[in-house]
C-alpha cells in the first residue's frame, strides 16, 4: 500500500512533473476513444460499457477501502440509490428539458446525500464496527426495496427511457455507441477527480487516518471527520456510477442494492489491488472479462471466483496491482529479462495444472448433478463420457505432471527472482 511514497514528484519543476503524470491519462483517453473502433461488435460495446461503470464504482469503493482503510459490506446501495433516483428523473415530465449527459451529476448528488445521512453515524469508528454498520444499513435499504414500492418498484424494479431527455448536440443516445462515449467521458472525469482527491489535504489525511488514527488526531485532525468526508466523496462517485448504470441498462432492480452486489465490488477491488490507484481499474477490467468468458462456459463460475478471491486474500494481499508493482525494483535494475524464462517454465505448467483441476471439478459436478443417462460432457473442446474411467485418469495425470514440472522449476524461479532484485554493490 505504498503508492503514496512513489508517486510523489520531487519538488522544483512542478510543471515538468505534472506533464509526466499526465502521460497515463492521455494514453487512457486515447484508448477509450479508439477501443470501440477496434471492437465494433455490439456485444463488445456492451461489455465495455459494463466494464467502465464497474471501474468507476470500484475506484469509488477504493476511496474507502484502500485510501481510508474502511471496509464496506453494503456499498452497492450508494450506487443503487443514485441509479434509482436517476431513473425517476428519466420518468419525470421535465426530463425532456435535461440533457442526458448531465444525469450523472444528479446521480452523484443523490449518492452523496445518502452517504451524508449514513456516514453521520457510521464513520465514528473504522474497522469492524464500520464494516458491520455498512452491512446492516445495506441490508436495510435492500430490504426496503420490496416494501417501498413507489420508489424502488418492488420485485420488478423500475425502468425508463433515456432517449426522452433533451438531445445533446443532436445526439439522442439511441445507439449503444453513443452511450459508450457518454460513459467513457464520465469515466475520465470521475477517475481524474478521484485521483486528484487523493492528492488533496483531506485525501492525504485519509491515508494518515488509515495508518494511524491516534497520531492523526494529535496533528489537529479529527479521524472521524476525515473518514466522513472520504465516505461522502465515495458516495458521490458511486452515485455517478449508478446514474451511468441507469442510462446504460434503463432498468434498476433490487439486485443493484443487495449484499451480493456489494460483495462483487469488494472482490473486484481487492483482486485488482487496494494499495494502488490503478488497482481497482485493473480489477474491474480483468473481472468483467473473466466473468463474461467464464459465465458462458461454466455454471460453476461463482465457485471459481470464490476460490480466486480467498486465494488472493491469503497469498497476494496486494492484488494484481501489487503483483505487478513487485517487479518495479527488478525493472529499475534492468534485470527484469532474467525473470522471463523461469516464469515461462514455472507458470505455464502451473496454469495447465490449474486448468486440469478445474476440469476435474467440472467432471465431478457433471457426474453428480447431470440427469441420469446424460453421461456426455464437453470440456476444452473435447467431448467424452464422464462415467468412463479413462477421462479421469487422463485429467489426474495431467494435473500431477503439470504440478510436478512446476515444482521442479520453482527453485529456478525463486533464484532468478533473488538475482533480479539484487543490486550490484558499487
Amino acid at each position, binding site marked *: *500500500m*505504498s503508492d*503514496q*511514497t*512513489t508517486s*510523489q*514528484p*520531487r*519538488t522544483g519543476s*512542478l510543471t515538468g*512533473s505534472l506533464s509526466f503524470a499526465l502521460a497515463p491519462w492521455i494514453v487512457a483517453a486515447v484508448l477509450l476513444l479508439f477501443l470501440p473502433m477496434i471492437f465494433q461488435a455490439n456485444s463488445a460495446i456492451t461489455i465495455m460499457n459494463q466494464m467502465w461503470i464497474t471501474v468507476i464504482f470500484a475506484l469509488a469503493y477504493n476511496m474507502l477501502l484502500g485510501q481510508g482503510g474502511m471496509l464496506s459490506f453494503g456499498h452497492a446501495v450508494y450506487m443503487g440509490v443514485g441509479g434509482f433516483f436517476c431513473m425517476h428523473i428519466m420518468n419525470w415530465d421535465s426530463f425532456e428539458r435535461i440533457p442526458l449527459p448531465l444525469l450523472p451529476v444528479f446521480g452523484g448528488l443523490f449518492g452523496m446525500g445518502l452517504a451524508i445521512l449514513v456516514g453521520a453515524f457510521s464513520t465514528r469508528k473504522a474497522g469492524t464496527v464500520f464494516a458491520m454498520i455498512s452491512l446492516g444499513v445495506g441490508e436495510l435499504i435492500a430490504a426496503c426495496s420490496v416494501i417501498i414500492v413507489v420508489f424502488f418498484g418492488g420485485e420488478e424494479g423500475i425502468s425508463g427511457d433515456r432517449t426522452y431527455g433533451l438531445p445533446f448536440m443532436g445526439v439522442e443516445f439511441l445507439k449503444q455507441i453513443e452511450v459508450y462515449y457518454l460513459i467513457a467521458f464520465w469515466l475520465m472525469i470521475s477517475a481524474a477527480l478521484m485521483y*486528484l*482527491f487523493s*492528492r*488533496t*489535504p*483531506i*485525501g*492525504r*489525511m485519509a*491515508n*494518515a487516518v488509515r*495508518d*494511524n488514527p*491516534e*497520531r*492523526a*488526531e*494529535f*496533528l*489537529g*485532525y*479529527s*479521524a472521524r*471527520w*476525515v473518514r466522513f*468526508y472520504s465516505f461522502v*466523496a465515495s458516495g458521490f462517485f458511486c452515485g455517478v456510477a449508478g446514474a451511468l448504470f441507469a442510462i446504460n441498462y434503463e432498468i434498476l432492480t433490487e439486485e443493484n442494492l443487495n449484499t451480493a452486489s456489494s460483495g462483487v465490488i469488494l472482490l473486484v477491488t481487492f483482486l485488482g489491488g487496494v494499495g494502488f490507484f490503478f488497482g481497482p481499474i485493473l480489477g474491474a477490467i480483468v473481472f468483467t472479462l473473466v466473468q463474461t468468458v467464464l459465465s458462458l462456459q461454466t455454471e460453476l463460475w461463482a465457485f471459481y471466483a470464490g476460490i480466486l478471491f480467498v486465494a488472493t486474500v491469503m497469498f497476494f494481499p496486494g492484488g494484481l496491482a501489487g503483483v505487478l508493482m513487485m517487479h518495479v525494483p527488478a525493472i529499475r535494475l534492468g534485470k527484469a529479462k532474467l525473470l522471463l524464462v523461469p516464469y515461462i517454465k514455472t507458470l505455464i505448467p502451473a496454469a495447465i495444472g490449474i486448468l486440469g483441476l478445474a476440469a476435474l471439478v467440472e467432471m465431478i459436478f457433471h457426474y453428480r448433478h447431470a440427469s441420469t443417462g446424460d453421461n456426455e460432457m464437453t470440456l476444452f473442446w473435447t467431448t467424452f463420457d464422464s462415467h468412463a474411467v479413462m477421462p479421469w485418469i487422463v485429467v489426474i495425470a495431467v494435473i500431477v505432471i503439470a504440478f510436478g514440472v512446476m515444482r521442479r522449476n520453482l527453485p529456478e524461479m525463486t533464484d532468478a527472482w533473488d538475482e533480479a532484485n539484487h543490486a550490484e554493490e558499487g
Partner: protein
Amino acid sequence: MNAMTGSHVPALHIDNLHKSFGKTEIIRGINLSIAPGERHAVIGPNGAGKSTLFNLITARFAASKGKVSLHGQDLAGMAPYEINRLGLSRSFQITNIFPKMSVFENIRCGLLWSMGYKYSFWNLVSRSRALTEGAEAILEQINLTARRDLPAGVLSYAEQRALEIGITIAGGADVIMLDEPTAGMSNTETDYIVDLIRKVTVGKTLVMVEHDMGVVFGLADQISVLVYGEIIATGAPEDVRGNPKVQEAYLGAALEEEH
C-alpha cells in the same frame, strides 16, 4: 502562534491532579506550573506514573480529580485534535508514525492543519510551495533530507524517533510534549536526539518525560522529580541534583544500577 506567550499566564498549569485505576491511585495530587518558553523535564524511576501523567495532560486519559489547563484554558473533555489546535503537540513513547507513507509525507501531514488546509478537497498538496518548503525545512532540521522519499517504516529506530519529533513540531504548536524521546537508544543516538530536541524547541515550551536523569541535565531549565505519583522536588537541574530527597528516592537507586 499564541498571543499569551510571554505573559504571566503559564503555558501549562496542572492543579491538584489525581488519577486512579480501579483502587490503585497512580497520580496522587500533582501541582505544576510551566512558564512559556521553559524547557521542563519530568523525571522519575520506572513505575512513578510518568506516562500516566503525560497521558492525563494530553487528555488521552480522563483525570479522576483536578484539572489541566493550557494557556489558562481547561482541557477536560477535549478530543486530541481540539487540544492540538490549541497549540499543544505530543510525541509517543512507542514510535507512532505513519509507516506506509514517505518521510516527507509524514512531516507534511503534520503541517497541514496549522497551515490552514483543514478538510479541504480543493487544494492539491503538491502544488503548495509553502507546504513543500515547510516540510523540507523540517526535514533539514531533523537531518532526514536524504531519506525524504523512503517509506517511514523502513527507517532505523533513531531515525524514526527523529521523524516522530519532526511530526510533533511540524504543526507549529508552542507547547511540545515528548514522551521518553530517547528510550531504547545507544549513548551516541541519545546525544544526537538531545541535540535535535534542543535545536527544534528554541522559543517553545517543552515538557518532556524521561527515565534517565542524565539525558535532561544539559537540556532542561527546570526538572520535576516524580516518585509514586507525587512530585517530590522541582527546581533548576543543579538544585534538584543536590536535593537529598531526590538522591534518596531516585539517584541512589539509579547509581546502584549503573555500578
